[in-house]
């Protein structure tokens, strides 16, 4: 469905003094029926990637096809078939929900009886029925996101590109939103969604971890977690800051990441826990508990980012090879 080959996008500042490489060396294929998560922090290059795929941004080099259409030469054909939801709210704030949806239907040639039927169907789906006469400006952030999704769905696209559809949305609305996405996916749509949240990434069938314009790792969430070397130990103790300092210097410790009142200690082997406990009490840290834990995507991601920085910003696979 989507084939990306060596895609690169460089933004040059108008004064030509600075340039930003937003996306580089991106090679990736996405098959029909996937729910693909493009995961990464702000500035990773997610939006730039999705914009290029939507045919609204020219790559600096490389090529890509969407549904067999070239993203530069056949951009308009892509726009016919694609449902694109931009990161920024793209509907008109001074128009009502109904007016916005009618406008989008006009533009996508959804006309006649089919239009009202489709709008009804989508409003049922997204629970926006009671807000049809409301100006888009007066909707909450979560409802705006749902309206934008509704607008992206009017022409029944087989492929959806959603750019951070849940950023700035409350947890309940986020869950609702993901239920909708899961349903779309189950009904056979291909969905590509970008997100900075790891818990959302876990719900995708495949994730691509992006950082600094590079795709660091791309696989199923399970496989990505298995790529984390060694094992994870969850540590609870009275002085986590001291524990972190001590553990970082230990040979068998690969990485230490704080998560609230728990310290995730990535070690070469489960069997290291005795040595770790001994070292901690030696340093005067009172250990409450230290037990093996299943690795999380977030731990893998942070680990990869650190590796990537330590390896002078070369992608993980390259370093391995």
């Amino acid at each position: 469905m989507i084939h990306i080959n060596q895609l690169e996008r460089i933004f040059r500042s108008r004064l030509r003094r600075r340039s930003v490489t937003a996306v580089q060396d991106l090679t990736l294929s996405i098959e029909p029926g996937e729910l693909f998560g493009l995961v990464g922090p702000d500035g990773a290059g997610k939006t730039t990637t999705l914009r290029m795929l939507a045919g609204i941004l020219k790559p600096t080099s490389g090529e890509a096809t969407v549904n067999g259409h070239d993203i530069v030469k056949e951009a308009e054909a892509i726009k016919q078939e694609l449902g694109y939801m931009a990161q920024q709210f793209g509907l008109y704030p001074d128009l009502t929900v109904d007016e916005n949806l009618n406008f989008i239907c006009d533009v996508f040639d959804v006309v006649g009886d089919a239009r009202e039927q489709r709008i009804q169907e989508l409003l049922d789906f997204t629970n926006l029925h009671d807000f049809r006469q409301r100006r888009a400006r007066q909707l909450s952030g979560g409802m705006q996101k749902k309206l934008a999704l509704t607008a992206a769905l009017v022409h029944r696209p087989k492929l959806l590109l959603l750019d951070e559809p849940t950023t700035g949305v409350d947890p309940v609305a986020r869950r609702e939103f993901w239920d909708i996405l899961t349903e779309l996916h189950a009904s056979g749509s291909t969905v590509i969604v970008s997100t900075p949240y790891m818990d959302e990434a876990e719900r995708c069938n495949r994730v691509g971890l992006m950082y600094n314009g590079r795709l660091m790792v791309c696989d199923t969430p399970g496989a990505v977690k298995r790529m984390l070397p060694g094992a994870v130990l969850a540590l609870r103790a009275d002085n986590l800051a001291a524990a972190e300092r001590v553990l970082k210097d230990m040979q068998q410790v690969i990485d230490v990441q704080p998560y609230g009142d728990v310290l995730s200690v990535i070690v070469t082997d489960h069997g290291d826990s005795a040595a770790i406990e001994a070292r901690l009490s030696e340093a005067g840290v009172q250990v409450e508990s230290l037990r093996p834990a299943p690795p999380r995507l977030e731990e893998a991601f942070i680990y990869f980012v650190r590796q990537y920085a330590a390896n002078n910003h070369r992608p993980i696979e390259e370093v391995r090879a």
Partner: protein
Amino acid sequence: MNRRHVLAIAKKEWLHIIRDPISIFLLMIGPVLMLIIISYAMATDVENVPVMVYDQDGSPESDELVKRLDRHNVLDVITHVDSTAEVEDKLKRREARVAVLIEEGFADQLSSIAGLQSLYTDGPRVSFIIDGTDPISAETAMETALQVSEAYMTERLNVMLDEQSEAGADETLIEVFREQLTTPITLEIDNRYNPDLKAIWDLVPAMIAVALMLPGMSISTTIAREHSQGTLESLVATPVDKEAILLGKALPYVLISLINVILMYIVARVIFGVPFRGNLALYLALSALYAFATLAVGLLFSILIRNVEAALWASMMFFLFPGMFLSGMFFPVEIFPFVIKIETLELPATSGVVINRGMFLQGVSARVLWWNILLLLIIAVEGFEIAVRLFKKRIA
């Protein structure tokens, strides 16, 4: 081009306009207001310009001159002064805008043949100083002062010549003086001073063309506004074609321009009493063409400048200032150097002014205006075509 797409864009654009109180006010009332205010400001009669008198002659004749100046409603003699220093002082402090300086011997120049001769050889013993900071009232005041003075002096000298001839002076000599006296003065005054309303008849139709550029200025921010609002990204990601976006955006503004034309037509006829001698249907058609031409240029600005303030300023530099000064509204296009003349051809307003004046005052037909119609067609079609070519359905 898909008609449904054009209408969809036009409809949403119309909603943007009517839901924004500022833009609906500026677009619906702005041009009419501009027409009324500027026409009034330009055409208001200059009245009661304060005048001071430095009379060193102190004769009945100088008194009479001052009285006549004061009696004219343009001038208002407010004070008499006793030194040139005082004259300078009062001018500087703007207590008076005009100074009438009457030298000793003013009466003598009007009372004898020798005086009349000295008037022509040495110059008159009366002169004026005018504060030129407000050129329109200054010019009116100056012309009034000259006219009144010359009329009085001519009258007085004619009386003197009558008396001389009654007293038995050489008739042929008197006739020579009479001839010399009247001819240049009366001619000059008649040509210069024209107090009827003709100026405003010229101004109002031109002003209509200039005011009609406001919608063009307004549309020049349309893409920038969508850009800053974040809706441009979603719009260009839809399959709607570029022509439909731009044409759809222009249509509501054409409608608004036509509403404005009708309102301004009524104001011109009713408030300013300007005659309309042309064909009304032709006038509306040409106004729509003119609106299209200005809107095409406005769209071009909109596409080139993706920042609301910058787009507004750029279009103001293009539309408003040159529109007023280069379009022929204030100064005839003929006086400009060749290069500027070429530039003014590009301005829709130049043709708009010609067409409006032609339709209102002369009642000309389309055939007479063919050159300006052709120019507007070229600006409209080419402007739109270039806009479509420059507009990319992409961000950045």
